[in-house]
């Protein structure tokens, strides 16, 4: 979807403001929101792609004005309602009105759960050989799907070069739209700054994206 989350190349957000004294969680609710997302995310009810989509579909003004962990919280609340894990009435009262339903997987539990948190593997068996080779020129397709995609707008329609083949991974678009784990070849595609930004590009800059095969075509 062409949402505000797809912000590569946008202007008007001001300077980047590093803070040398930052702590991971300035407020306790941020830490709880983070950990609740990790635990509920391990229950197999949604995967990383679906989780991202439920942040991207927040109203644009909410997305832009909410802090990172507030967005995580809103995503979790929305997903729990959508999947009937909690009800509006329960959220209003702050208490459960009945036992939970069985989850697809046992969520992380116990006092050592933190050690089990890791990034999962996303390899999928290929359905066909990779269509593109390293060094080949490709164009990022001019597509604007309403559902989830990981092809950023700034790359669409532009020609780049395949630099690496990263293997065959779960295709996020199919995961969100159809709920299926479909393997697609994943490539690092590098674009010259001038190709993306024309005369407004900085001298000597290149940008790469990680592009699934359905995002690409021969120019």
């Amino acid at each position, binding site marked *: 979807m062409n949402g505000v989350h797809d912000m590569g190349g946008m202007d008007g957000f001001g300077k980047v403001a590093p803070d040398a004294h930052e702590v991971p969680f300035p407020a306790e609710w941020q830490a709880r929101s983070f950990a609740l997302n990790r635990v509920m995310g391990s229950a197999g009810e949604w995967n990383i792609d679906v989780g991202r989509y439920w942040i991207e579909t927040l109203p644009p003004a909410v997305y832009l004005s909410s802090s990172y962990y507030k967005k995580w919280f809103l995503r979790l609340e929305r997903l729990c309602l959508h999947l009937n894990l909690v009800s509006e009435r329960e959220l209003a009262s702050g208490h459960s009105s009945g036992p939970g339903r069985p989850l697809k997987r046992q969520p992380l539990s116990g006092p050592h759960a933190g050690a089990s948190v890791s990034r999962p593997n*996303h390899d999928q068996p290929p359905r066909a050989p990779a269509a593109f080779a390293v060094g080949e020129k490709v164009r990022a397709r001019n597509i604007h799907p309403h559902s989830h995609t990981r092809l950023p707008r700034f790359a669409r329609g532009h020609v780049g070069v395949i630099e690496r083949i990263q293997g065959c991974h779960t295709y996020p678009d199919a995961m969100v739209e159809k709920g299926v784990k479909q393997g697609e070849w994943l490539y690092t595609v590098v674009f010259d700054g001038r190709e993306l930004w024309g005369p407004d590009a900085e001298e000597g800059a290149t940008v790469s994206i990680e592009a699934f095969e359905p995002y690409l075509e021969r120019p």
Partner: protein
Amino acid sequence: MSNDHDHDHDHHHEHGSELSEMQLRVRALETILTEKGYVDPAALDSIIETYEKRVGPHIGAKVVAKAWADPEFRTALLADASKAIAQLGLQQKVGDHLIAVENTPATHNMIVCTLCSCYPWDLLGLPPAWYKSTAYRARTVKEPRKVLADFGVTLPDDMKVRVWDSTAETRFIVLPMRPPATEGWSEDRLAALVTRDSMIGTGFPKAAHEVAA
């Protein structure tokens, strides 16, 4: 608005009300999910403790120092970072699809995620607020040198800048250039030179004289 920092610099007058509203809402959801048996509060505590205390840039620093000190490990790291790091036997597991990209006198690398805030948590801990900010996500792909200027970093004019947008489940870490005058240093001493920002590409390692012998 200028950013989306967790502490919402641009909403000072609303700061208190967002905090208390969010405290109540998060507590309500945690209570309900716990009462239903979905969530074990001990697991929440353990996960928070892991990311506050155990996982952080010191892990990435160890990997960078090893790559500086051991040419064979450097080659293995650049070929397959997940595999090379797995063989180090670190306490915290490092995930798959990790890619190390090397800074050279000709090319400086920077990592960004324009679509959300993908970041190599397992090597660097949770991303800093600036990495998640709209300004960093929006500007880095278009004007990386101007973004570096916000960090006080200037590159030579003839150095190329390569920006890696983390749009899939591959994760990137920058292998910065080893500072001069560090020949013969132990890996522990080298690791003390490595800053978090130098592994994202928004900073350099410390200079030799900034680290105690």
